[in-house]
Structure formats: C-alpha cells, structure tokens
C-alpha cells in the first residue's frame, strides 16, 4: 500500500510541534526551578487527612513528609488562604505541566499519523522509535506527577520536570535531525506482528527507564549534598525504584519477544547480535540494581549508581550500536 504523503507530512509537523512545546515546557520548568525557594522542611505543615507517617526516615523525626510542599499542593483539600494568586514559581510550574500535556498529545498524534500514513506500527526506524520512547517517558513522568498530586506532594516533585524533559528534548532533537527518515514501508524482516509487540515493549521499557535513570542520577547528586532545591533523596530513590520495578519485567518481555521474533526471522532465538547482547547487558545491570536494592550496604548510593549505569547502557544501545557497529538490528535507516 502506498504511503500517504499528506498524513506523513502532518505527522512530521506534529513531531516538530511536540518538540517545540517540550522545549517551552522545559524552559518554564527551568524558570520554576530558579524562582523557587530552597526547601525548608521544618516549615512544612503536616498534611491533615493523612493518618500515619509512613516510611519517614528516623533522621527527620516528627515530620511525616520530608518532601512536603512549602507551597500549597495542587490537590489540597482545603487550601490555606493565599492572598492574591500563586507565587511566580508555582505559576511557571503549572504552565510547564500544562504544556507538557499538550506536548504529549502532539507527540502521540505524530506517531499515530506516521502509523496511518505508512500503514504499519509507527516504530519501524530510529526516528519513530525515539519519538515513541519520548512519548512513554513523558507519559510516565506525568503519571508520577499525578500520583504525587493525589497525595499532595506534587509541587516539589514538579521540579524534576526540568531534568526529565531535558533528555527528552535532546532525544527528540536528534530524532528530528540526524535520525530523520521519511515515512516508508519497512524491510521484509520487519514485516511481522512482532514489530508491534517487541518494539512497543522495548520503547515502553526504555521510556520508563529514562525516568528512573534521571531520578537516580539526581539521587546521586542530591545525596552528595548538591541541588538542594530538588525533592528529597528519599523521594527520588522511590521514583527510581518504582519506575525500575515497573520497567524491568517489560524490558524482560521485550528481550523475550525479540528472541521469539528472531527465531522466526533470523534462524535462531539468540544469536549474540550486538543489539541483543547490549540489551542483555542492560538487563543484567538492572537485575543488579534490584539485587543491590535488597542487599544491606548496597542500598542508596551504590544502587543508584548501578541504575545510572543501566541507563547509560540503554542509551549506548540506542545510539552506539546502531551507528557504529553493524549487526542484524542495523536496519534503522542509519547504518
């Protein structure tokens, strides 16, 4: 079936708009970050309506939530009287989140249009795959934010937005320039329903692991005393762990479906192709993270460092393997 060039053009336009909107959102997050006050945990009001202080570290006694907002949280049931409007930082942050939502819609729209234009799942090359990863990463980020909004801790966590959107913007920029390929059918080896299953699992896992990687990187910085405006190290660790536990089975599934697909496309389920080897290395790194998280003496910083390594391997797998080495996976229109 021929490629619908008009739809493909709209898809590319949506991609560019998504990128522009993400950049704007990132700038607003940066404004929020620089305008926001340093956190003063002791001034934080204990939230009403929460029965117990769960999981509060012993080092901060009598304060249920060390990362409790210094500014009124989004979903506060009974907001304290704020004289006139919100502080500028808060306003910038809220605008950033609103723009991020708009960006996600455009990002999803661009993928959908690509898929409709080419009559196939819209992740058949590096350009589309990167777009899909970004979409998942930003959606995962919004989900994290939403969950924290419900428990009234969103305002501080929102400051993470700058750091989540930064890699997303870089990735989208690379995708739109270096990795860009026009909409086209995929090569015979990719014409399989496994493209929909394997690659979508890989992009979902990669996107969520991006959020985990950012959180762990910031955790390492935060726990060494820098970036005091960020959410507490504890909150960052929690986001990283939750994201990794969610993404790890998905990544496992992605590797397994890749093996099943390879069995029918390449002649054996595991052939030590550079891409699958590096995927396995990343898998081992994340397995090490989960083990470290459950081993005395390895929790906290060492575990976070392992998570950062895992993320680095994922990035390496995304770029280096496709550009520098040639394996069976180097179909992506770039090498």
């Amino acid at each position: 079936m021929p490629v619908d060039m008009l739809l493909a053009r709209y898809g590319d336009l949506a991609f560019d708009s998504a990128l522009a909107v993400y950049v704007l959102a990132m700038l607003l997050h940066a404004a929020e970050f620089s305008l926001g006050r340093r956190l003063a945990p002791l001034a934080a009001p204990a939230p009403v309506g929460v029965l117990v202080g769960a999981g509060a570290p012993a080092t901060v006694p009598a304060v249920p939530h060390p990362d409790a907002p210094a500014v009124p949280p989004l979903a506060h049931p009974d907001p304290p009287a704020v004289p006139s409007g919100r502080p500028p930082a808060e306003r910038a942050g809220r605008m950033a989140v609103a723009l991020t939502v708009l960006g996600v819609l455009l990002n999803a729209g661009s993928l959908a249009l690509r898929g409709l234009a080419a009559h196939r799942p819209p992740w058949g090359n590096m350009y589309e795959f990167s777009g899909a990863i970004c979409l998942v990463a930003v959606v995962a980020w919004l989900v994290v934010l939403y969950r924290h909004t419900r428990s009234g801790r969103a305002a501080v966590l929102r400051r993470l937005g700058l750091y989540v959107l930064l890699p997303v913007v870089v990735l989208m920029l690379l995708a739109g320039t270096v990795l860009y390929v026009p909409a086209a059918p995929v090569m015979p080896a990719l014409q399989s329903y496994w493209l929909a299953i394997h690659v979508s699992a890989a992009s979902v896992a990669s996107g969520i692991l991006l959020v985990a990687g950012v959180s762990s990187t910031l955790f390492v910085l935060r726990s060494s005393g820098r970036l005091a405006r960020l959410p507490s190290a504890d909150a960052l660790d929690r986001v990283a762990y939750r994201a990794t536990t969610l993404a790890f089975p998905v990544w496992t599934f992605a590797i397994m479906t890749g093996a099943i697909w390879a069995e029918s496309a390449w002649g054996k389920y595991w052939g030590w192709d550079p891409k699958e080897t590096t995927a396995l290395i990343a898998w081992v790194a994340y397995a090490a993270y989960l083990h470290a998280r459950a081993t005395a003496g390895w929790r906290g910083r060492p575990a976070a460092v392992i998570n950062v390594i895992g993320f680095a391997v994922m990035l390496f797998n995304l770029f280096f393997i496709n550009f520098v080495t040639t394996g069976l996976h180097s179909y992506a229109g770039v090498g």
Partner: protein
Amino acid sequence: MLAYLRNSWRGLTSMRTALVLLFLLALAALPGALLPQYPLNASKVADYKTAHGLWGTLLDKLGFFNVFAAPWFAAIYLLLSVSLIGCVVPRSVDHLRALRSEPVPTPRNLSRLPHHASSVVDVPVDGVLATARARLRGWRTRVREEPGGVATVSAEKGFLHEAGNLAFHVSLIGLLVGIALGKLFGYEGQVIVLADGSQFCNSGILGYDSFTAGLKVDGTDLAPFCLKVDSFAAHYLPSGESSSFAAQLGYQTGTVESGPWTPYTLEVNHPLRVEGDRVYLLGHGYAPKFTVTFPDGAQRVGLVQWRAVDGNTLLSEGAVKIDPPGVTSEAVRRRSQLAITGLFAPTSSGGALVTSIYPAPDNPEVAVDVYRGDLGLDSGRPQSIFSIDQGLVDSGRLVRVARQNLRPGQQLRLDDGTTVRFDGAEQWVSLQVSHDPAQTSVLVFAVLALVGLVCSLTVKRRRFWLRVSPRDGTGSVVEVGGLARTDQAGYGEEFTRLCRDLIGLQARKEVEHAG
C-alpha cells in the same frame, strides 16, 4: 578444611558475590557487542586483526573475538549458576517452611515498627477482633491471648512474592539448561539452491555449503525431508530497498521421492517448520547462465550462483568453470578448460563499465573475462566457487582470451571459434536449516521466569499486627503495627487503609500517630 569449604560456599552464594558476578557478566559480554565476532562475521575479525597487528592477535588469543565461547565467559556464568543454585535451594526450603509456619507473635512494642498507630475505641475487645478478622480476610492470621484480657492478631500476606522470586530464579536455571541442551543436540546448515526447480535433501552434511553441528550431532541422523525451490520473487521500493521476498517451495517428508510435493511459500518471518526442523530464507542472488558452443558443435551450459558485491544493487561477481567436452587426455584438458568470470548487473546502467543501479533483473548485463587453460580443479587444493585461482593466472597457466560486455542473447567468439552466449540469469535462494530440540523448553522457562518476575515485583510480603487491650469495661485500646519484609515503598498506603478500616471507622476518634 571443612570450614574452608563451608566458608567458600557461603561466600559464593552470598548476595554480594552474586552482585559482583552479575557485574562481571555484564562487563565480559561487552566486548561481544563491541568487537567483531567469529560466529557473526569472520571476515570482519580478519580485517580487525590486520588493522590492529599485535593487539589484534593478542585479543584473538584471549578469545575476545569469540567471547560467548570463551572459557572466562563460561567461568563467569557457571559460577553465577552455582551461586544461583546455592541461593535458591536453601531459600526454597525456607519458603516451604514459612508456608507451613504460623504468623510470628506480635512484638511487644508496636510503636517501634516503621508503620504504626494506636487509638481508643468504644468497642469491646471481641468486637475489634471480629472486625479485624473480617477485614483481614485473605491474610494468614493468628489470634493470640496475652495476660489481662489482651488479645493480639498477627497477620501475614504476600507469599507470592517469594514464590515468584524463586520461580524466576529456578526458571533461569531451566532456561540455561535448555540452551545447553540445544547446543548439544542442535545443528544448523546453510545451502544455496537455484530457484529453477532445483532440489535439496536433508540427508547428510555433504548436501550443505556450511554446517555447524552440536557436540552430540554426527550428521547421520538428520530429519528426513527434501525441498524443491520452484521460483523466487523479490519486490523492491524505487529506492532499491527490498519490500518483500518469497520463494515458492515444495517439500516432502519421510523417505525421499515418497510422494507429492507439498507447496509452501517461504518468506522472511515465515520459516517452514517440518520434521522438527526449521527452514529459513536467508538471502538471494543471481546465477548468470552461459551457453558455451565448442567448434565441434558440442554445447555446455554453465549455471552457478554468483555472490553480491553490493547488497543494495545486487551487482554480483562469480566464476563459471567449464570442462571441454570430448577431451580424454589430461594434458589437453589442462590446456583447454574455460572459466567465465566477471560482474553481473541485474539492472545495468548501460555504460561501458558495467554497474548496477537497481536490484531487480530489469536490464541484466554481464561484463565477463574468459580464461582458458588449467583451472586447477584436479590439483587437490580447495578453491572458491566464486573465483578462479589467481595463482594460476599469475603463473601463466590460465590465460585471459576475451573480455566483453554481454546482454542476454549476445555472445562472444574466442580465437578458436568457441562461442560464449549469455542467456540471462536465474535466481538463487540461500536457505538455512536449523534444528534445536530444546527450543520449546527454553520458551516455557522464559515464560515462567517472566510470570515469576512479575509476581515477585508486584506482590509484597508484609506483616500486620494488632493488639487490643480492654479499657473502661466497654472500650478498648487498639495498637497496630506493620512491617514490609522486602521494601517499604508502597506498603504505607495499604497500611493507612487498614488503619482507617480497623480503627478509624469503628470510632471516629483522634488517632494518635507518631512516625
């Protein structure tokens, strides 16, 4: 000695060692992704070695070009497997024991637990216990009595966490065993078959162009089936990228020539599964066909696969080697053997120098050199089917007698009156036959591992305790405490809900909490 062994065993099976081994495994696999590997691309390894001299030779000696067969890589995963078994077996025993044992008694001081709360309610002890029992349905509970009319409830939940964890690790071992069995009893062979009705039978190793056998395969008991490749069709995008490949096959199973050919369309992603083997379409190319007419009128047809030198345009190179007919003398024969070598372009650019601009056979043309002399076919030395022995050319025993570009139907004439006609090109397909009897078990264990992993990561093993003490005759003091065994994250919300249901709803009194 025994102590030493015991300590080594403990060291090996500790989580710390497992972590280090996991790291080593990741690190050791890295060169497998970064350096060229023999099983994937032997010629790239050769290039790398020439480019890097001594360094390349050293890496080769250390097995860096075949990482996944290197002893040091095997050492890591074997140690990891032993560590895994050493960890999983005692934990399975513990888990079975835990499944049968009762929830542990309530700690004396619940306020020391990470999650705790207490409250005064207007309900007697029995009432609280009844509510607790109802609310804690699905938990393993045990009610105990303490002096002074005090009652405690110990509750546990989330045994699926450890069960999933163990299932995952046991499945990993099963997976490794399956892979090993596949390596022992599996085989893999490649063969090129012309797509003009030519046949291939899986009767022995000799039928293959290349064959990789597992350690327990001697090549005698191959799955009995035959293939006949009737035709091959490829479609290309205007850019020259391929959009589809399909070979029309017929296959027979059982004893050869035993029945009708069952038709099958062999495509990428759609291997033929027959007799426990899989047949894959790996590649394709062209085989130019030449008819050589000797001065005496005798004809010989040369039809041999040529190999692509450019994957995008399928410009191909090769050699057609022909013995003259009716020659009995060895000496004469060695002077008059013919070889037609050169380039084949499926869609020729039409220039004087033959180049291909498109992979489809739209405008085929060959540029051939015809050599005459001794091809060295009886020299006993193996030679490539794609080229002639350059040494024989250099020594003058093989002489070039013609060079010309030919389109289908065109012919060239040699000095002795022999004509060489280019008839066009057939297509060939490269097939791979794979056999892996353990493949299904690998899949089953992979699925089990995934299920176990999901259970272990989503289910949390957690404990909940409740102590009710009578107060003022009709009321009671309720203390609750909670502890998540593996990770505290996520238990907080459930604990809050439990508290709300058990204390908050019974008596809407202020809950004292301290965290």
